[in-house]
């Protein structure tokens, strides 16, 4: 669309904000939930993208061209995310979009991106984002379904056949709860108690008591993110339930151990990425250099520990840079085609190999089963 020169206030302000971007050739858009209920997911994502773009431009950009990042904060609101996606595509004229911290925002953004045929790399968990496969939508985090599978694999190894489920009623918790219920039969496990809590609740002892008293329960799984799982973990200890507790990848961060308390978190298992156990990776591990570099740079710049969510953004950006470099062009279609031929790219979340049918590119091997011992992460073998 031809931009006509106007003096309307919005245009002027937008132009002001993008003054630096006007010169760059490669424009990457992002709509992230840096504020709102998913803020502690989106905040590291935004910080990561800003840091990586800065780093990249300092090294000369892609094929000699600088990259401009246009970052908007949708506050976790799907409606706003759609507006920003429209703005990125029609007003800022970006060639690709990374973002969609939550599934709701991702679904909104991808709707706009698919219509406009702009590649979109999502940072959200739900399997619905890439299944069924949509031509221009990709994603970097493991799906919630994969998290369930990883957990059930571990449970099966332990001989667990009956579990209690306690899930947050937020998008992440509810989606993972549904996926887990869907695949659990394949592992010969049965759900004997199914409770939920509101993400803002202060006490889950009522629900946990019901689970504790369910006949034959051998372990408990808690799909959720935010402060909920920390409170569940503390209540779990308080009630001295004593059975194995599995958390989800939604709490894969050092903050979780701190909030739940070292004692309560002892023995908790969850599927995590290499990022949390950077120090424990074998020297030959393909992810080690990537993880170490990201961790060092992020922690030096922002003075807070890395989190898996920032890692998702790191990988999304790495995939994009790789695709643009290999495509040698910034045409959205060329970028998309290049993304589909990614092979063996080591990120912080895993090693990506995509195809036209697989827009996630990860399998269960990159997911590590972690256990919390003595306030720190260890890898379960």
């Amino acid at each position, binding site marked *: 669309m031809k931009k006509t020169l106007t003096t309307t206030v*919005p245009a002027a302000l937008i132009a002001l904000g993008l003054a630096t971007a006007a010169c760059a050739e490669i424009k990457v858009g992002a709509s992230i939930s840096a504020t709102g209920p998913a803020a502690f997911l989106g905040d590291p994502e935004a910080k990561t993208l800003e840091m990586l773009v800065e780093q990249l431009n300092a090294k000369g950009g892609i094929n000699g061209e600088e990259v401009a990042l246009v970052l908007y904060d949708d*506050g976790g609101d799907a409606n*706003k995310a759609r507006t920003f996606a429209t703005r990125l595509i029609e007003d800022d004229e970006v060639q690709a979009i990374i973002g969609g911290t939550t599934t709701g925002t991702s679904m909104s953004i991808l709707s706009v991106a698919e219509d406009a045929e702009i590649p979109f790399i999502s940072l959200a968990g739900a399997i619905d984002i890439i299944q069924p496969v949509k031509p221009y939508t990709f994603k970097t985090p493991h799906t919630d379904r994969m998290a369930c599978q990883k957990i059930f694999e571990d449970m099966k190894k332990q001989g667990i056949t009956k579990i209690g489920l306690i899930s947050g009623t937020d998008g992440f918790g509810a989606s993972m709860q549904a996926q887990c219920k869907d695949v659990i039969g394949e592992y010969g496990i049965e759900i004997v108690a199914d409770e939920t809590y509101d993400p803002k609740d202060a006490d889950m002892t009522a629900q946990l008591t019901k689970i504790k008293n369910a006949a034959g329960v051998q372990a408990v799984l808690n799909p959720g993110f935010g402060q909920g799982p920390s409170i569940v973990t503390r209540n779990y200890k308080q009630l001295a339930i004593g059975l194995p507790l599995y958390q989800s990848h939604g709490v894969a961060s050092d903050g979780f151990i701190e909030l739940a308390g070292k004692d309560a978190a002892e023995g908790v298992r969850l599927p995590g990425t290499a990022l949390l156990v950077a120090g424990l990776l074998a020297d030959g591990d393909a992810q080690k250099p990537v993880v170490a570099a990201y961790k060092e740079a992020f922690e030096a710049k922002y003075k807070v520990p890395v989190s898996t969510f920032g890692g998702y953004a790191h990988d999304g950006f790495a995939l994009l840079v790789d695709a643009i470099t290999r495509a040698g062009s910034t045409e959205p279609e060329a970028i998309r085609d290049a993304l589909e031929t990614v092979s063996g790219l080591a990120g912080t979340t895993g090693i990506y190999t995509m195809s036209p049918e697989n827009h996630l590119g990860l399998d269960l091997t990159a997911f590590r089963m972690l256990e919390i011992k003595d306030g720190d992460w260890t890898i379960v073998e």
Partner: protein
Amino acid sequence: MRISGKHLTILAMAVLIAAAPFFFPSGYYFRVGALIFVNALAVTGIVILTGYAGQISLGHAGFAGIGGYACALAPVHLGLHPALAVVLGAVISAILAYLVGKPILRLKGYYLGVASLGFGILVAMVLNNERHLTKGPDGIEVADLGLRGLLKDWGLNLSNGEFWYAFTGLCLVIGAWIALNLHASPTGRALRALHGSEIAAGTVGIDVARVKLQAFVISAVYASVAGSLLALQNKFVTPDIAGFMHSVEMVTMAVLGGVGSVPGAILGAGILTLLPQVLTVFAEYEQLILGLVMMLVMIFLREGLVPSIMRKIRGRGE
């Protein structure tokens, strides 16, 4: 004088809506415009309820949720065309408003506030928890309205943005026309009378309970249609549409612009919809500035922007 004032308002609105696109640098502005119109439609309902009849509702977004999800679910489960789904949503909202309104409108002030709040929260909760029906907190897809395709067949080729801008603009003009007519009608006068004093209104023979209920039901329909339009436009709807923050947003837009004024509703909707877009450069400060704007306007321009501005223009003293 009254009659031409009403016509003038509608004419001004229609002209502005039709003329604005000539200044749009890109398709994105159509999207923002359409959002403003949808919000303004919902807020017009609030004007009728709170501005004309003086009743507070902190849960009106619940009706928007019903309208939105009607458009998502009815085509899938009942085979209805999305346009009919909008009507269905409005009917359900009206019935629900009648059933809920009858008891809670006996309450006043903060008590009415908490009762309406409870209603809104309950609706949002059902939409969120009944996963098997609504697909839960992540939201659900909404079928295409099909009108744009129809227009294309008839030779009028509009982009998605352009179509929704025009369609929601049209709906808003119609909604505003109805609201302005209501204001001047006997029902409108009854509403305003009971706003002034319920007891006095009762003594002159106005059936206070019935009139309050009428306002509640009408405003519920406005919210429902607005919710439907939003869902159809986004081709997606999430339970947030029925949430407390959305209810607060609607009331704030009304009060900011001037709670008794339909043009005020549009201005309020415009400002609060544009604010996050304008503030993207200062995204970190958005909440701060929003809160500040809300407080400042309420303190210094107590009646809202439009009445205060009109007062200045007309030069009338207090």
